[in-house]
């Protein structure tokens, strides 16, 4: 059964992508959408099923251990499935807008659907594989596919953003490959080559790894996957790519893409913790997490572009998640788990809404988008609500998570870092809300007819936010049992 589900997750999007591309070539955009959506939904259903099963009955493995789903993988699978469903649901609206502008032939729509299926399928495959080398292959593949999506509009700025993303992403990911190879070398000749990259093997045999090589490996992995996570100072591609991509793609990049990269980095971290204890890699994670918070802040406060504002907010939030991982300890790790999921959903909703506002107004400038609550009520309200949640105001899962991370940091002995993070978060909240209030009710926006949207569209933006609010109020007992499993893994025996 696990074999079957894993195959569906990895292959259904590929089949859907090929079919969508062929349908696009035949000029049938609607068929392209249907086959791509079918492939993606099959994969998301399989991913959710496999994740729930693994959480209920313990780690699942298949294909001789090549596919292994523990609570951490299951968590990321659920996150990817949820965020990618939002991106999928928002895509017809985006393409409809592009079509109304008269810009896109059906061939392009087929390509869009094919790339979207490949991108989300790749994201869902990474947490399945129990092999650091194949995790690398998956992340590199999603980088390339998403680079094509970033430049999809072919506007000069989008091409510039995609180009930077491709070059910087490839260099970053090259460092990650070097880190992966050094882990392999650190496992030495004791392991046979099949399982020397399996994270289950590496965590279980941490003591037999070469410590010097492993330290070097982690530094390279941190630079490499850190580039993909958007950790400062390797983040410079992120605001460009996430602001120039189509709205649904920004949602998927920010909500799920960054989390999957952080997942890869976390697997390295867990191997290093098993081998050397928590001191080395945790300290690095805290330093880079805090630095990302600090670097994102001025760009949030002084931002003039709505989508770049959200992109810098992603750098801030992923910095916080990295910080939480570095803090360790039960409380901070619970915060990490809650935070990454809630951020993914809230940011997906925010990017979909922001994308709609930007396309309606024909401008990214915050100064031109004022008064969105009256001009485009559904999108305007969703963006405002998402911003309130993202800034960390209660009631929301993000509020609870941020408190847990900060108190967890103090409890784990990182008092100074937690204090600095609290100050940075408060300032970033003020900056984000200032700009978002201007977008909501500011007097200086473009004049335009009131934009009505279908109920379905409003639901796509509102539903993820409802989940985030609910997560701050109520934890059902199966969820808390799942969170316990996750924290036990992330704690690496030191939690």
């Amino acid at each position, binding site marked *: 059964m696990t074999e079957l589900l894993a195959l569906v997750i990895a292959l259904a999007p590929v089949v859907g992508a090929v079919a969508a591309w062929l349908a696009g070539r035949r000029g049938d955009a609607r068929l392209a959408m249907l086959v791509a959506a079918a492939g993606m939904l099959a994969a998301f259903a399989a991913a959710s099923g496999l994740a729930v099963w693994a959480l209920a009955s313990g780690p699942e493995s298949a294909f001789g251990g090549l596919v292994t789903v523990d609570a951490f993988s299951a968590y990321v699978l659920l996150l990817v499935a949820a965020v990618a469903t939002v991106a999928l649901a928002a895509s017809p609206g985006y393409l409809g807008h592009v079509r109304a502008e008269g810009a896109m032939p059906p061939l392009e729509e087929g390509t869009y659907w094919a790339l979207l299926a490949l991108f989300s399928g790749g994201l869902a495959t990474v947490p399945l594989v129990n092999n650091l080398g194949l995790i690398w292959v998956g992340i590199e593949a999603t980088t390339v596919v998403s680079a094509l999506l970033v430049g999809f509009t072919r506007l000069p700025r989008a091409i510039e953003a995609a180009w930077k993303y491709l070059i910087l992403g490839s260099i970053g990911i090259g460092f990650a490959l070097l880190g992966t190879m050094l882990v392999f070398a650190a496992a030495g000749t004791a392991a046979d*080559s099949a399982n020397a990259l399996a994270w289950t093997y590496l965590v279980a045999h941490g003591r037999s790894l070469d410590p010097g090589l492993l330290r070097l490996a982690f530094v390279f992995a941190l630079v490499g996957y850190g580039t993909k996570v958007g950790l400062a100072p390797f983040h410079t591609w992120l605001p460009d790519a996430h602001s120039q991509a189509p709205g649904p793609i920004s949602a998927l990049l920010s909500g799920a893409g960054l989390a999957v990269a952080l997942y890869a980095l976390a697997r390295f971290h867990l191997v290093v913790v098993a081998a050397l204890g928590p001191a080395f890699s945790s300290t690095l994670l805290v330093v880079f997490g805090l630095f990302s918070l600090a670097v994102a802040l001025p760009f949030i406060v002084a931002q003039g572009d709505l989508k770049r504002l959200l992109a810098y907010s992603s750098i801030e939030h992923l910095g916080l998640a990295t910080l939480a991982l570095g803090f360790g300890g039960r409380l901070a790790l619970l915060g990490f788990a809650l935070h990454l999921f809630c951020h993914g959903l809230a940011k997906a909703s925010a990017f979909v809404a922001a994308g709609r506002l930007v396309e309606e107004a024909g401008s990214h400038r915050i100064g031109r988008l004022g008064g969105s609550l009256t001009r485009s009520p559904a999108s305007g309200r969703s963006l405002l609500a998402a911003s309130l949640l993202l800034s960390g105001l209660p009631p929301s899962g993000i509020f609870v998570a941020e408190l847990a991370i900060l108190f967890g940091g103090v409890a784990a002995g990182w008092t100074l870092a937690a204090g600095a993070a609290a100050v940075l978060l408060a300032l970033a909240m003020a900056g984000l809300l200032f700009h978002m209030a201007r977008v909501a009710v500011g007097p200086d926006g473009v004049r335009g007819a009131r934009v009505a949207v279908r109920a379905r569209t409003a639901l796509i933006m509102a539903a993820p936010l409802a989940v985030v609010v609910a997560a701050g109020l109520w934890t059902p007992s199966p969820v808390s049992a799942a969170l316990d499993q996750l924290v036990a893994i992330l704690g690496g025996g030191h939690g």
Partner: protein
Amino acid sequence: MTISAATASSLIDAFAAGIVVLGVFIAVTRSLGRMIWVTALQSMLVGASAVTVALATGIEHLAVGGALAIAVKGVVVPLVLGSILRQSSVRTERRPIVSPRISFLLAVVIVFVATEATHDVHVSATLGATRALPAAISTLLTGLLIVMTRRKTLSLVVGLLVFENGIALAAFSLVYAMPLVVELGALFDLLIVVVVAWVYARRMLDVFGTLSTDELRNLRG
């Protein structure tokens, strides 16, 4: 056909020296055409070291990886890049961010630093080819140097290839028992990166009418 470990390690050391010298040359030259073909030559040397390791150790899939590296990075990629070059009016890197003389100086510094820094690192599973690791690190850094100091789209792709050659040298000659699926995945991904870069280079030609990244200065802050 097999060769002894001693022969293999001296062969690999010779290839490694060649790879480093070619890397320095790529960092210094301003002709885009020359950059592309010298990089192809460098990639072939990387593939040849992989084949050498395969012959000495009997790990067959490494020979496959080496042969593929020669075919893909030594032949296919340069042909693709050459076709872009023919469509564009740009032939030389007219104003690199630092002058060739300084590039040369920096490249030499990189070689020395890489050699010094890897002096104490010992990787158990090697054939005793002592120059491979410093050569890999300095090639990788040379690639970064090229990416950071050039303005033309094609130069950046070449820098990326040099960077990847450094990684591949490390992969093939140091941790040569990596599972085949990982090696193939890495090679395949590289090919896709170059294809995507080609797609974007063509779009840049269409939209900006040039292959210079000077046009790419709109996204700030």
